[in-house]
């Protein structure tokens, strides 16, 4: 396109329609805009380049006893998802949407006699630098509740956002509407936990009926499991705990700290790091002077933990101080962000990491990798499973009855998922309690062993 334009310009120059100065200016402008558009094009994810045809093995995911119905004679229903898709969360949110869409494609975009129309909403706003906005989330949740075709709300990424939208869906008319999250890990959303605020979790369910499920295990699993492994298996006795001052990061960090202390370890420090700081060398030098055996960092990738790890390694080599992080860090972006410093860092994950999956999971991993062109974010697994739970509920109910769909989703059992076979507990949590310990080796994630949280005293 730009070449054509420049060709026209040259012709004009020859015919002396424009003088040289003007020619140079216009050519420059075309060149610049072409470069810009080129960059834009590069940024558009490779997603949706090839609509994945219905793959064979995909149907083995979910409860095998539920028959899938691909006819669409009953009409159309909507699934709506909501999480940030721009700014710092662009890649992560995009991976989750792509994975969810892949699940729908695998099932032919239909279930229980209905065609499924999927809309990915963004609960982030520019005024917030692209991160989630409470009013926006409330607005999306309300519009979902008011849309009679909407059956399932697959949301949110941020637990804080879920705290806003769960009550809205809970008070839907005629009865509570199903909300299923692929990523919320704050324990207080569903269950009693030592760090809960007043009235959690019941305050999220004003009608007294539970309408919220999550296919991802909560924070009270990973932090304690990592602490138990650190004290009992690795023999580490003093820990410095850092977090990103967000609901998730602080939550896992607190859980790690408490268990670590309970098991007899010493906590050398517990504090937040500034996600906007360009450099942490001074912080790490100071931490090194307290000589911890392990540094635990509760954070998600886009809040700069990669740089934190780099600066940690420049004063504390991996042979002396162990690094452990939660599943917010189990993605390629973190490994790339930390560079060489990522070597030998431990990251836990509730379940097996995408690349260590077996069977259907392994197949899913190969396909999503090809689709995205990069390592998928770990939460993409859960986005896929959440969609399948909703599809199978629709297959059972075969009616656009939200209350019945909610019941069917809640009673999901024997679900052969990508991460293993599980069911929903009565709190809406998954029954899976596997936590895997993984290590970053040569730029890749290597699964080491399954670890477990100590029984609650």
């Amino acid at each position, binding site marked *: 396109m730009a070449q054509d334009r420049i060709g026209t310009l040259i012709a004009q120059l020859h015919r002396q329609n424009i003088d040289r100065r003007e020619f140079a200016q216009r050519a420059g402008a075309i060149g610049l805009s072409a470069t810009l*558009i080129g960059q*834009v*094009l590069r*940024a*558009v994810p490779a*997603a*949706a380049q090839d609509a994945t045809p219905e793959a064979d093995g995909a149907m083995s995911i979910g409860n095998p006893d539920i028959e899938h119905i691909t006819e669409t004679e009953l009409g159309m229903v909507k699934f709506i998802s909501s999480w940030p*898709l*721009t*700014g710092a969360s*662009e890649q992560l949110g995009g991976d989750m949407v792509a994975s969810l869409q892949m699940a729908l494609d695998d099932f032919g975009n239909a279930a229980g006699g209905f065609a499924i129309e999927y809309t990915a*909403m*963004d609960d982030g*706003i*520019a*005024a*917030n*630098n*692209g*991160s989630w*906005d*409470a*009013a*926006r989330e*409330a*607005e*999306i949740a*309300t*519009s979902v*509740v*008011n*849309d009679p075709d909407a059956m399932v709300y697959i949301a949110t990424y941020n637990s*804080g956002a879920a*705290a*806003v939208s769960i*009550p*809205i869906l809970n*008070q*839907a*008319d005629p009865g509570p509407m199903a909300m299923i999250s692929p990523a919320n890990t704050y324990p207080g959303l569903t269950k009693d936990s030592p760090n809960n*605020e*007043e*009235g*959690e979790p019941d*305050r999220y369910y*004003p009608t007294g009926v539970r309408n919220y499920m999550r296919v991802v295990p909560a924070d009270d699993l990973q932090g304690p499991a990592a602490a138990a492994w650190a004290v009992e298996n690795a023999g580490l006795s003093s820990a410095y705990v850092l977090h990103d*001052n*967000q*609901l998730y*990061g*602080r939550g896992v960090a607190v859980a790690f700290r408490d268990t670590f202390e309970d098991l007899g370890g010493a906590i050398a420090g517990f504090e*937040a790091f500034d996600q906007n700081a360009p450099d942490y060398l001074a912080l790490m030098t100071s931490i090194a002077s307290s000589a911890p055996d392990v540094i635990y960092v509760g954070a998600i990738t886009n809040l700069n933990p990669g740089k934190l790890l780099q600066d940690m390694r420049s004063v504390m080599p991996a042979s002396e101080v162990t690094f452990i992080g939660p599943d917010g860090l189990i993605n390629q972006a973190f490994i790339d962000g930390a560079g060489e410093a990522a070597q030998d860092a431990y990251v836990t994950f509730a379940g097996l990491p995408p690349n260590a999956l077996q069977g259907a999971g392994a197949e899913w991993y190969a396909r999503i990798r090809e689709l995205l062109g990069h390592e998928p974010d770990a939460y993409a697994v859960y986005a896929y499973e959440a969609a399948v739970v909703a599809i199978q509920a629709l297959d059972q109910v075969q009616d656009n009855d939200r209350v019945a769909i909610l019941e069917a989703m809640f009673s999901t059992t024997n679900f052969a998922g990508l991460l293993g076979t599980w069911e929903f507990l009565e709190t809406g949590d998954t029954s899976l309690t596997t936590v895997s310990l993984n290590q970053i080796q040569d730029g890749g994630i290597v699964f080491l062993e399954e670890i477990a949280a100590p029984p609650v005293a």
Partner: protein
Amino acid sequence: MVSTPAASTTWEDDADQRQAWRERLWLILGIIALALVPFVDSALGINRLGSWIPIFVFIILAMGLNIVVGYAGLLDLGYVAFFVIGAYSCAFLTSPSSVFVQNGWIPEFFQGFWPAMAVGWVLAAVFGVLIGAPTLRLRGDYLAIVTLGFGEIVPDFFINAAAITGGPNGIGQIARPPSIPLPGGNSINFSSGDLDNWYWLVVAVGVLSLFIINRVYKSRLGRAWQAVREDEVAASSMGVNLVRTKLWAFALGASFSGFAGSIYGGYITVVYPDQVQFSTSIIILAMVILGGLGNIYGVIIGGFLIQSFDRVLADELNAPLHWIGDRLNLDFLREHDLQSDRFLIFGLALVLMMVLRPGGLFPSRQRAAEMRPEDQDITVQEQQEMYDVRQDDEPSAGERA
């Protein structure tokens, strides 16, 4: 300004009156349009009533910032700080999770939504004065940076002082307005599903704010703001108390931010410290500038345009864009997501507005004259010529530090 005797109908009076009538006409039309929104929304099944509530909250914010920037000419880059203060004061007073409530420091009376909102309003104004008092003697851009610093520190405080504020967990269970009983056994409720009632509430609050701001602007204080903005020294020698005038602008501007914050808190029922950032202040500023600094109706329209783009249009415009991409067979358009361009669009809006239409879409009459760049791309020669004729047009004393 001296008031003209009512009898003498000069041309200017006539123009003023026509202007006033036109304003009133637009206002009435606007209110009618707003009143129709819920009916149209439900009749057409648009289901977007929920979008209007934050839009109105932000319009109230923009109206408040317009007092500070548009009327008094003081650039405030940390305006959301007052919004945070408003929302948190509402949370501290009414939430059972707040340490203040748990320690029994809050009298029962203040634990309701309405009293808490009043407190939020006053508290934000007090903070406006506290920030304003030491900084008002600074020149314009230094003042902007101080307010920016303040806008960074306040959310930092709320996120870091976890013992009081709950840190990143925020504070939940903020009180909502109590139901208003109606004769006949019905009542007006304000739970999350009652979007209609929330809509009427924010519209009412918005119109009330507009009314108050308009009254103030037309009062002696409003004229003092304009005088200070135009020429501080001249205003001062005419007997305007600079400090008091500026402080009032800061306090009133902040109070509307606090007002908006407490309503927002009541609507969402949870406050999180990471919900406001520097960019929020900038977006509010963009709304004021887009609409037209100093023209409150312009600001309302600017706020409406930007907020609806951010919350609604960026979503909705994707479909037509992809359709065009399909027709033209351009993959770039077909797959592009407009939501990822929002920063770019706001940035361009700010720059283009300043360069091409510095008064905004609907410039206030006085400010239009003031904001227009007088000479563009001047050559040395032109500049020298200009200098010859512009001897009397030296920068006014008011712009001296």
